[in-house]
């Protein structure tokens, strides 16, 4: 083996070690859904709570439980608002864990001085999104903090769902040959929020994709339940982070065909200008499904029949080598690694 091969092997050995949390302070990178976040989860939370299966939702006696906090700035953006996210984000964590969402608990942290109309608008958004997703908000809590302590409002929702008997999902169950599906075009939510912040003096017709994924999950379970290995909603860190997480959990490789990944032209354009890869940009209504080859065709057809998932596509497949690594066949005809980012995707200098 040449020296490059040996260097690669050494790197993979280092990467295969359990992550340790050694940082002295929390930085913004720990919240970005990349490597720093994973270090926090695998290095601090999982060992403390003796968790082995790190899923979006935990299961207790046929029920699934999940929770999520929403701290988006600005509160409203094209295609939705923090209220929509607070419902759909939690509903989606249940859905991709194979659980039918039943009920939500809602916890609000409000900033002193918040306009009542803004609060009213978000409460209405929450009610409408919950109705659309078919869940009830059944309990809640409110706290108010001093001006300057939060950006208007923070919302936490906790979701309860019933595990669907058609589902037998596990992040460690991927095997070579499995197909990778996405339920639609990627990168819309993150791009819409970035543009709404107005930092780039850039405008593009991009709206958040926030929506409940239960209809998509329901269709997948119905069409190819036994073939369905795992699902994830591709939120922070985007599709790339989901693929890395699953490749690591199953000890397999994943090869993505870049040309097959659906990306709206406006998203592709905005990301191009900022030097960001849409595969790392957050979605709030897109799932990635891993399906055994025999069920892949039915699964894709079923997905495409769901409103909002017309652009669903098969973007790659699971391979035996290289283990725990995601490779991209670029549209240009070359290959590269698609790794987790350390923190937020950063625009390039020049």
């Amino acid at each position, binding site marked *: 083996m040449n*020296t*490059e*091969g040996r*260097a*690669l092997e*050494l*790197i993979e050995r*280092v990467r295969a070690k359990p992550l340790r949390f050694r940082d*002295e*302070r*929390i*930085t*913004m*990178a720990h919240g970005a859904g990349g*490597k*720093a976040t994973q*270090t926090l989860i695998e290095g601090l939370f999982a060992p403390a709570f003796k968790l082995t299966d790190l899923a979006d939702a935990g299961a207790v006696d046929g029920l699934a439980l999940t929770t999520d906090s929403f701290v988006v700035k600005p509160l409203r953006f094209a295609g939705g608002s923090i209220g929509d996210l607070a419902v759909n984000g939690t509903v989606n964590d249940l859905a991709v864990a194979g659980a039918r969402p039943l009920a939500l608990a809602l916890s609000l942290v409000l900033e002193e001085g918040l306009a009542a109309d803004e609060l009213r608008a978000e409460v209405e958004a929450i009610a409408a999104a919950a109705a659309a997703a078919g869940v009830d908000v059944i309990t809640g809590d409110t706290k108010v903090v001093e001006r300057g302590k939060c950006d208007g409002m923070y919302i936490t929702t906790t979701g309860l769902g019933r595990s669907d008997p058609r589902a037998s999902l596990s992040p460690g169950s991927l095997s070579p040959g499995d197909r990778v599906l996405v339920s639609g075009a990627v990168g819309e939510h993150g791009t819409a929020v970035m543009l709404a912040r107005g*930092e*780039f003096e850039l405008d593009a017709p991009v709206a958040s994709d926030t929506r409940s994924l239960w209809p998509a999950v329901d269709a997948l379970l119905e069409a190819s339940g036994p073939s369905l290995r795992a699902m994830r909603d591709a939120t922070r860190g985007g599709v790339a982070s989901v693929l890395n997480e699953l490749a690591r959990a199953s000890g397999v490789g994943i090869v993505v065909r870049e040309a097959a990944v659906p990306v709206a*032209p406006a998203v*592709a*354009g905005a990301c*191009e200008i900022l*030097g960001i890869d849409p595969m790392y940009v957050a979605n709030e209504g897109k799932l990635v499904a891993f399906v055994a080859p025999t069920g892949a065709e039915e699964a894709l057809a079923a997905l495409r029949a769901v409103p909002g998932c017309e652009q669903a596509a098969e973007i790659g497949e699971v391979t035996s080598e*290289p283990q725990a*690594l995601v*490779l*991209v066949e*670029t*549209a*240009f*005809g*070359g*290959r*590269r*690694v698609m*790794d987790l980012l*350390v*923190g937020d995707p*950063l*625009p*390039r*200098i*020049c």
Partner: protein
Amino acid sequence: MKFVDEFRDADLGQVLAGQILATVEPGRHYKVMEVCGGHTHTIYKYGVDDLLPENVELVHGPGCPVCVIPMGRVDDGIAVAKQPRVIFTCFGDMMRVPGGNGTLLEAKAEGADVRMVYSPLDALRIAKQNPDREVVFFAVGFETTAPSTALTLLRAQREELDNFFVFCNHVTIIPPLRALLESPDLRLDGFIGPGHVSTVIGARPFEFIPADYGKPVVISGFEPLDVLQSVHMVLRQLAAGRSEVENQYTRVVPYDGNLSALEVLAQVFELRPHFEWRGLGFISNSALKLSPRFADFDAELRYDIPGVRVADPKACQCGEVLKGVIKPWECKVFGTACTPERPIGTCMVSSEGACAAYYNFGRVAREREAV
């Protein structure tokens, strides 16, 4: 995307790959340096290496603006950022560069007001919005980004802002190239010249490379087809025994550069007699500082800058990587002690750094066509 996708056409890539294969001499090993970090990024992001024959080796050069900033300057930046009234602004990549004592991102977590901006004009806007604060912009980059800093300073002067300062770390591309060419351990056959720098300085300043050192230079664009075509142009020069400056990036680069940008640079900056480059040491006349007419905006005059030189960590071989003497994976700490999560050297930080580009994108066992 119209006007971009055309330069990423896989079929044309295959055609060029075939032409390259037909141009190389079997048995001869070619080493071509891409000077600019932007090219390094393109090469790894699109897997351009996969389209080259085995005996054509691309060597990554010193043209990554973040990679060449020495640790002492990062410490200086952090010291300014920690001043009580200061809002310290910088490009995103700079936030993760380790100094002798942590990064700007860590300084931010400890309470310094450090903000990421996308251009110096953003920093100027923050200064206008915060008249009771002092806003400092950490200016880095080659001639590509220096004009935007210069224009921002001209505007600040015109608008008589008294709370905007620039911590200037702009550098110039020609002196390090000359230093590289003088270094005895260098074995290169030709250069892919930096396209964006050349939009400002033009192609002419590179003429010393063929004239004094007999090596071809091709100024290149940043799309994968640009890079492939430029490699082909270098190889064609070598095959014909020519060495000259050619311009592949004619759609953007005028041979004599952008005269108004050069004028603005001359108005605002002057050369520093010496500047330390990460891993390359001190290089004469290789960096810019604010000219005396802009002294009121000069963070180095406004604040007490420690200015302590910090030696690179012993294990770090960024210098050799920046000179193209070793490949990223040949560095002793590459991928083990030095990773994008915990970089030791600057080359592991910026997405344009050779080490980060290789670690993030290139870490694939390659099977290429042997010639």
